[in-house]
């Protein structure tokens, strides 16, 4: 029975009202300060070049110009660091070249900023940027990940290699995996490319800084998924501004998908400029800049092998991956292809041997980092494509082959061969549900109908498990993380009984303003409308790590629960005092504190008021006030999983693929707001289908990004996508967090790409074409070419 309120209710989102009325306040919408100035960047038009000289004298004398910065201005400040230290197989730490605020000495990708102009208006700043004379000697661009490893042309000369690291996971399993493959009855090999994507949050990045000389304080408004993390990076690594002198505010943010996790040089530049010119300084990215400089996603070249016995039991997975990290290490760039990827390479399976090798390579391209799914889509894609190919080679049904190797419900907790301990799941139940809601039994009839229209119809299936709730600090510390990955919440009960809940997570589409109050209201038995969420402002919220990796609910939501539990404990003390009963005899039900077994009670509101008007308080036992903070550090990752399928129609004359039916059955554990969870899956599916069929960030050999606008980069549009069938009725609760929640933000983008590709291959095979693989995106040209070359 669906609930109307509280946990499990599809409460409509309160934040929608302001967005629907055009009253959202994104960074670029903030009314200009009386002293506002604009920053515009001079960006490299070449992918690789030595900066011989930069002459800013003309620019400096132009109308309205307040200051011009170059890399030399930041030579003494720190670099933007990588958040995760990876050691190579030989024990050597990764190469970590400095990522400066502005390029200095060399430019390393098209769009790399080497100067910035601050002027009264944006137009004046743009004109002045045009007047900067930069003598940049172009060098050959380093573009191909494999060629880069043998080249003596380096992205970063000081490290003398283009290899960031050569990582093995798990190195001790290497020999056993090699032996298992050597002795196997059957080995399926697949080479594939996980195509490079541009996240494309619809709101371009924007950063605005001001500086108050009287107190030496800075304020930065910026498009961030994690204002505290941004402040930490600026304070501790880049600028050295003490944290108590820097407020970072991420107001309404128009989507992130990973790209707004990271600290970018533009943020540091506007801070430095605000101080130097004594003005509020704002930079707003245009879309071209966004394409050139937002961290991209994916970009793996992988060879995967799957060894089985004669009956199709999985014996080993072995992969070799070249991961393009771009020109500089973005903050999570080293974690994404390693611990968010290699650790998932056992998938949903009881396979005993897994070995993953990842070589991270610098190239003259934009930095590559976490994008919706971050490493896990790459793992799932490799696994589920090779499994599909294996099924075809063995003549087995692809669902049956997966089921044969699934971890079974009685095997949890399950230690995967890739080093994680899965706490819960039921993959067969997901597959059962998927077969039911997708009407898999009806596929044969639908195929006939398609064929009658002259179209090929294919069915593709996929199973995934991912690691969310990022992440247990103890574990990630051992694995190389330089930060903890807890989150925090403060629950403040105000005197008249309404609540402010300050959270470390940041909402940029996820609906926290609606969902977190649902949880608190449920626990306290009060109206959710009396509870407001405060997020995004480091001067108001406790130190939390923000929103990415499907962590907001599992980690920050758990902190909200813990803080609310503390509120209840203290409120019971106060109620006990008011009712002259022991606190252990007080129970809370429907917003009422009462003495067990009596009709004596006080309301939540009365307790709140008493907390702030503590007349007659036993001040030795109870402090005034009713406000509690909790930091929550997860005990383990959470492990959402799912079974997906889709049906495509392929036009054999044109190679055009249409996704006709897309079904996602996910285990997210307990679900707080089914409407929002369903919406998160929809969004992930849209991006995943986009990756499979449409999207590609394409550089040419000179390092020019050829798909740097919406004219050239094929964003999924409404008529590219179908209605989706989504189900999350088969949840197995997470065993180690108080909500039993696993996280849902990335699932759709993880589960859908292999599903679509598997379906297209199936369609082509049904048409008698022996095509076993096509690299994404499956454009009409690629599909048609594959068919006609088969």
């Amino acid at each position, binding site marked *: 029975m669906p609930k109307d309120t509280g946990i499990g209710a599809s409460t409509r989102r309160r934040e929608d009202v302001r967005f629907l009325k055009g009253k959202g306040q994104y960074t670029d919408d903030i009314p200009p300060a009386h002293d506002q100035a604009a920053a515009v960047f001079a960006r490299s038009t070449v992918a690789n070049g030595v900066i011989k000289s930069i002459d800013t004298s003309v620019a400096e004398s132009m109308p309205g110009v307040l200051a011009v910065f170059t890399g030399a201005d930041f030579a003494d400040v720190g670099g933007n660091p990588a958040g995760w230290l990876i050691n190579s197989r030989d024990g050597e730490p990764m190469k970590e070249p400095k990522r400066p605020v502005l390029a200095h000495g060399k430019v390393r990708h098209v769009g790399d900023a080497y100067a910035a102009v601050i002027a009264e208006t944006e137009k004046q700043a743009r004109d002045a940027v045009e007047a900067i004379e930069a003598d940049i000697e172009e060098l050959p661009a380093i573009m191909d990940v494999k060629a880069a490893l043998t080249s003596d042309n380096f992205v970063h000369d000081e490290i003398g290699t283009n290899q960031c690291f050569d990582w093995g996971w798990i190195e001790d399993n290497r020999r056993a995996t090699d032996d298992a493959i050597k002795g196997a009855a059957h080995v399926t090999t697949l080479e594939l490319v996980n195509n490079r994507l541009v996240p494309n949050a*619809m*709101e371009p990045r924007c950063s605005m800084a001001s500086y108050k000389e009287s107190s030496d304080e800075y304020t930065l408004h910026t498009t961030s998924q994690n204002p505290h993390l941004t402040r930490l990076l600026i304070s501790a690594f880049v600028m050295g501004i003490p944290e108590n002198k820097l407020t970072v505010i991420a107001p309404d943010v*128009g989507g992130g998908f990973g790209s707004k996790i990271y600290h970018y040089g533009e943020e540091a530049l506007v801070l430095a400029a605000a101080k130097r010119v004594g003005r509020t300084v704002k930079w707003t990215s245009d879309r071209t800049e966004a394409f050139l400089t937002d961290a991209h996603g994916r970009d793996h070249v992988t060879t995967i092998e799957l060894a089985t016995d004669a009956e199709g039991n999985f014996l080993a997975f072995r992969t070799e991956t070249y991961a393009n990290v771009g020109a500089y290490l973005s903050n999570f760039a080293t974690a994404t292809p390693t611990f968010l990827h290699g650790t998932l390479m056992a998938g949903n399976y009881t396979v005993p041997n897994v070995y993953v090798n990842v070589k991270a390579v610098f190239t003259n391209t934009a930095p590559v980092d976490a994008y919706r799914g971050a490493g896990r889509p790459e793992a799932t894609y490799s696994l589920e494509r090779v499994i599909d190919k294996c099924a075809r080679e063995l003549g087995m049904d692809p669902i049956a082959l997966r089921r044969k190797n699934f971890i079974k419900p009685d095997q949890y907790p399950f230690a995967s061969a890739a080093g994680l301990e899965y706490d819960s799941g039921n993959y067969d139940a997901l597959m059962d549900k998927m077969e039911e809601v997708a009407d898999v039994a009806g596929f044969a009839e639908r195929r006939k109908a398609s064929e009658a229209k002259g179209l090929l119809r294919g069915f593709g299936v996929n199973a995934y498990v991912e690691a969310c709730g990022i992440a247990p600090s103890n574990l990630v510390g051992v694995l190389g993380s330089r930060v903890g990955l807890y989150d925090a919440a403060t629950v403040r009960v105000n005197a008249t009984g309404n609540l402010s809940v300050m959270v470390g997570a940041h909402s940029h589409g996820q609906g926290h303003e609606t969902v977190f109050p649902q949880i608190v209201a449920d626990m306290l038995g009060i109206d959710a409308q009396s509870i407001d969420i405060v997020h995004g402002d480091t001067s108001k919220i406790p130190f939390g790590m923000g929103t990415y990796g499907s962590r907001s609910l599992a980690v920050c939501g758990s902190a909200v629960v813990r803080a609310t539990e503390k509120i209840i404990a203290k409120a019971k003390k106060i109620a006990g005092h008011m009712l002259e009963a022991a606190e252990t005899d007080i129970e809370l039900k429907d917003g009422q504190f009462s003495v067990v077994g009596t009709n004596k009670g006080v309301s939540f509101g009365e307790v709140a008021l008493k907390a702030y008007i503590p007349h007659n308080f036993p001040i030795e036992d109870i402090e005034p006030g009713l406000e509690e903070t909790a930091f929550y550090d997860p005990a383990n990752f959470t492990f959402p999983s799912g079974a997906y399928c889709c049906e495509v129609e392929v036009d054999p004359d044109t190679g055009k693929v249409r996704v006709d039916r897309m079904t996602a059955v996910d285990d997210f554990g307990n679900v707080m707001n089914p409407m929002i969870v369903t919406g998160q899956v929809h969004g992930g*599916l*849209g991006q995943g289908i986009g990756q499979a069929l449409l999207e590609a960030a394409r550089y040419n050999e000179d390092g020019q990004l050829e798909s740097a606008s919406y004219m050239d980069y094929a964003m999924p549009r409404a008529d590219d996508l179908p209605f*989706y069938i989504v189900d999350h009725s088969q949840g197995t609760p997470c065993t180690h967090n108080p909500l039993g929640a696993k996280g849902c933000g990335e699932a759709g983008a993880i589960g859908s790409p292999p599903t679509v590709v598997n379906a297209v291959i199936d369609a082509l095979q049904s048409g008698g074409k022996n095509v076993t693989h096509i690299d994404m995106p499956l454009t009409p040209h690629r599909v048609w070419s594959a068919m006609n070359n088969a």
Partner: protein
Amino acid sequence: MTKVEMTVNGKQVSRDVEGQTLLVSMLREDLRLTGTHVGCDTSQCGACVVHVNGKSVKACTMFAIEADGADIKTIEGMAGSDGSLSVIQSAFQEHHGLQCGFCTPGMVMTAANLLNDNPKPTEAEVRHYLQGNICRCTGYHNIVKAIMAASGQDVSAIAAE
């Protein structure tokens, strides 16, 4: 500078603008109507859609001086005078047709124009009409559903919560 006069959300406004000022810049910067967003620089994303004399127009493709004398409606003019959401706005909330909210104003303005032209559009007609509006959050499912619901059609068969 050229003086332009227009009606914006029912109010007469007059501003001196440069010839190169885009309508979207005048709305956002001069009139502080920041609900109209800028999501690209190639007239592709549709975050800046407003109504000019009753027709949806990408406000980044029109100079302010071209709108001289026009009747303009922006997202800020879509709710009732009492602040209540319009039928389309309500349907977007009811069917979770928005997440981050950035594309939403353009989506609502385009949807209003669609339903004006075609009061009972099919799914395919809605999807086709939205070609000029990009959303990165929703995968469009709930946007299409919301627009069909706003047109008075029964959407209960379209899967969702």
